Every structure is written in C-alpha cells, then in structure tokens.
C-alpha cells in the first residue's frame, strides 16, 4: 500500500454518465494486479469525508485508469477533476483475481454494469498468458455499455437495445455447456443481486468462480473493521472486504 499525491492526466465520458479518469503514478502503476482497487480522496474539506474505493480499470505505463459513474457527492467531485489537478490516492489495495492459478484454461470474465471495471486489466494480464478469454457484459441499455479493451465480448442488455435481451447471467448460462469443455473459471464483478445469481449457477455447474464485491468502506486497508463479509465454513464468521477481498471464491462467502 502506497499513499501518493498524483496528477490527473485525463478525464473523459466513455458512456452515458460514465467517465474514465487517468492519473500519473509511477509508484502505484507497477504494483497493481487485476481485481485490486485504489482509495481516492475525491475532495479536500470534510464533506465527503471518506475516501472512495475504485477498481483499477487499466494500466498503461505509469498511467492508472479508473472508470466510474456519477451517482453521489464523491463521484460528482471526481467528475470535476481536470488535467493537472492533484489526486490523493492510497493503493493498490485488496486481493487480486487469481488469474494465473493453474485451475483453469478459459477465463470467463463477467461484468454487470460498472462491474466491468476490473475486467480490462484482467484481460491485459490474461493476454500475456496462454489462457483463453471469453467476456460477458451486461448493462441496463446499450448507451451504458463500456466494452473497450476486452476480448471475445458478448453483450446482454435489460432492454434488448444491444445483444441478448436479459441479464448477463442468463446469457452466460446459455453458453456454459459449450465452455465447460475448456476448463473454465469465472471472474465476475457487478451488483450484489447479479453476483448472487451468478454464484448459484457456478456452484450448481461446479465451475470455479471468483467475484469482486462492493460495499461501504471507511479505511480500505483493514483498520476499521467496517466491511464485513460473511464467510462459509472456517472458524471466522466474517472476513474483511477490503483486506481479504474484494475478490472472493464464491464457495467461501455468503453473498
């Protein structure tokens, strides 16, 4: 974990109300692994008070990128950043996806809404390996899709404005039979209800699956105990989303 003051390089809208922020950090860039996050102090002053965690979207040299949509005061403040502004960043934080574990040959990347955030970096990593990649993206509607920097993308939209009409989990389920032959492992991120449904499928089909969770955090590095995740089995009842996660094997947690 490193605490640095970085410079904003760029901010642009990549989809409807969805922005990619790029900042320069030679300290953090080389350390980040797919699935990890950074904790940003979005504004000076005391409101918003706490940092906001964001998955790392992409790394290019010393440039780090996040993708976010504007929902509340923190993201509103981020949207106001301009090239040259300073950015107070803590990171990288959390446990990455186990992308180079030997237990799979085909990485099945699944992103619901902005759950796509960690997938491009995962793709960057996987490309350097001999694993195959298939990607399933879900969004409410076509205008909210962020589908760049991914491989083998198939799309589902709730309103059917693009690709499969329905949830990304339903879409993936239809393809599973054809995937099962190639030792798949699912790496997913998205809203809790989606991850819940996804986990059910993965467990039933006995496909290894890691999900990246989201929830309230105060510190992001393990000192406040504010981010419990209920564990299954083991003697501890709760793990910490920020320290033991945000990525978890679905067999280990209650979603």
């Amino acid at each position: 974990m490193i605490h640095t003051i970085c410079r904003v390089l760029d901010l642009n809208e990549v989809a409807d109300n969805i922005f990619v922020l790029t900042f320069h950090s030679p300290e953090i860039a080389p350390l980040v692994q797919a699935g990890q996050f950074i904790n940003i102090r979005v504004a000076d002053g005391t409101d918003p008070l706490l940092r906001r965690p964001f998955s790392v979207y992409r790394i290019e040299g010393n440039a780090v990128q996040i993708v976010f949509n504007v929902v509340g005061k923190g993201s509103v403040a981020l949207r106001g950043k301009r090239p040259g502004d300073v950015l107070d960043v803590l990171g990288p934080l959390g446990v990455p996806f186990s992308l180079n574990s030997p237990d799979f040959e085909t990485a099945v990347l699944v992103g619901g809404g902005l759950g796509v955030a960690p997938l491009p970096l995962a793709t960057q990593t996987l490309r350097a390996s001999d694993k195959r990649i298939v990607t399933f993206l879900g969004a409410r509607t076509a205008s909210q899709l962020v589908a760049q920097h991914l491989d083998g993308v198939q799309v589902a939209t709730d309103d059917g404005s693009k690709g499969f009409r329905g949830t990304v989990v339903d879409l993936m389920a239809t393809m599973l039979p054809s995937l099962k032959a190639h030792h798949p492992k699912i790496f997913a991120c998205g809203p809790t209800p989606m991850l819940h449904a996804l986990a059910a499928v993965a467990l039933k089909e006995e496909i290894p699956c890691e999900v990246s969770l989201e929830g309230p955090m105060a510190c992001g590095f393990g000192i406040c105990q504010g981010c419990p995740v209920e564990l299954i089995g083991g003697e501890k009842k709760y793990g910490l989303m920020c320290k033991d996660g945000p990525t978890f094997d679905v067999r280990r947690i209650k979603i």
Partner: protein
Amino acid sequence: MVKTSVRIAGVEFKNRVLVASGTYGYGDDTKDMVDVSKLGGIITKSLSLKPREGNPPPRIVETASGMLNSIGLANIGVRKFVSDKLPFLRTVDTAVLANIAASSIEEYCAVLDILEGEDGIDGYEINVSCPNVREGGLSFGTSCLLVEEITRRLRARTKRLLAIKLTPNVTHISEFARACEAAGADAISVINTVIGMAVNIKTRKPMLSTVTGGLSGPAIKPIALAKVFEAASAVKIPVFGIGGIMNASDAIEFLLAGATAVQVGTANYIDPAAGIKIADGIRQYCEERGIADVGDLVGALDAKMEYSAIASWL
C-alpha cells in the same frame, strides 16, 4: 527546540498525539507505510476476554462531515492479542495503551489481569461504552456509580496508567469525570462516539444493521470540545481530547480547551499518517510563536468564564 513530550502517570509520551482505539487496529496494519514510532502513543482496538465477531453488515455509513459506525467491537480477544500482536508492539518505540471492553465488571478485571502479566504495555484505557449484561444491557458508561466502581476495581489491580474513556451520551460528563478521579483514575479520555442514526430512503431500512451507531469525525468536533472543556474544568487529572481531529489546528483547539493530549480517530482512515502530521503541525505552531513547551497550550483558553453547567439560553 519545542518540548513536545509529556509524562502522564509515569508514562513518557514523545508527543501529545495518540491514535484512538478502534481506528488503528493493533498498530501493525500500516507498518510498511507509516513509522508508527513517531506517534505519541498507540491505543489498541478494544480487547475483550473472548474474541468478538462483531455486528453484521452494514457497519458504517458516511454522514455530513462524519461517519456512523456499528462495528460491535469486533476484536481478536485479549489472548490472541498477547500472542500475535503484542510482540510487534514491543518493538515499536512509543507508548502503548491497551483499550479494554467488557460486558461485566469481572470481565474488565479478567482482561486487565491477563495484560498485567505482560510487558510492553504502558497502561490501559477502559471503554465503558459497553452493554452491561447484568443491567439488561444498559451501557456502563451512562451510570456514574458503575463507572466509579469499574475504576476502583481496576485501580486496585494495576499500577500502570489507567485512563477511563467516557461516553458523551450523558447529561453532565463532569460528574463522570469526577467519579473517575475520585476512584483513582490517572486520566480520562473524552469523547467516545455520539449515538446517531441514518436511514436509506430508497429501501426504508436503517443504514446500519443495528439501526443506531456511533457518530465520529469533524461533525462531532464542537461537541467533543465542549465535553473536554466541561470535563477538564471539573478535574485535575489529565484529559485525552478526542473527536473530529483532522489537523493540527483542530488538535490545538482541544489543547487550549484543556486537553493534556489528543487522540486521532477517523482521520486515520483518510490518512494513516494523520497523527504524525498533526504532532508535527503542533510543534510548528509552537515554533512560529516561540512557545517552548506544547504543554503551555494546555488549558490556555483566553475565556472570561469557566465552564458552567448553566446551559445559556439556547
């Protein structure tokens, strides 16, 4: 050279800024990033006799210039603390206070007794904002008699620094301060979190699984300052000032209001080095003004009136 150190009940604090209980774990989470030996002192997460899993999520929510928490004192338990965490703390060259939480007076004593057997602990801070099983779960901290009793019982068992951490959720904190002093406490810590609540208007559910929780951060700084002023005016023993301290200016307000030293809590979540920066900022403030000893600021408020329980017309 400004004198930053202070002795309280025989314990040397290299500066007057400690990290508050529950906001710095057991002092080891940030060791690869922050030189914690630069802190005036480290106060551990509250330790109970048995490990505590804590409350179900959600445990925290941000509010205007503050945050609510309902951690439920999740902690590894005193024995695991001694075996797994204390060895590291012994290697850190700063004061270490073990914060103790319990649901009975006997449990407070039992936890303290276990820690008494260990070196590397300079003293204790007692968290009385805990439900008393015997009283149907009513907080010890809201009963002057129980706070005095806890203090007396623990005082009899240790010669180490004994600080009682008071809750602000009482009518007159000065009564509690006096009770602690009378029962032999070496210091009091003011304040713990303020009871608060937040509601999600979309789901109609409370933002915390326990409905209410503890408010901390800049929002409570004015409340904490008033409580510190009230408590410090009532007793001679040192007061640790706590509540919403984010920078040196905030900390100096507490010293002027009567705090002998301060504790930094929520600020650690935003900057794990906050305490060190604040200690440094206080030193600079004194340097710029030719103040030889940070202690000269303590209680140096230039006010016409003492604190009085007389609530002026609000």
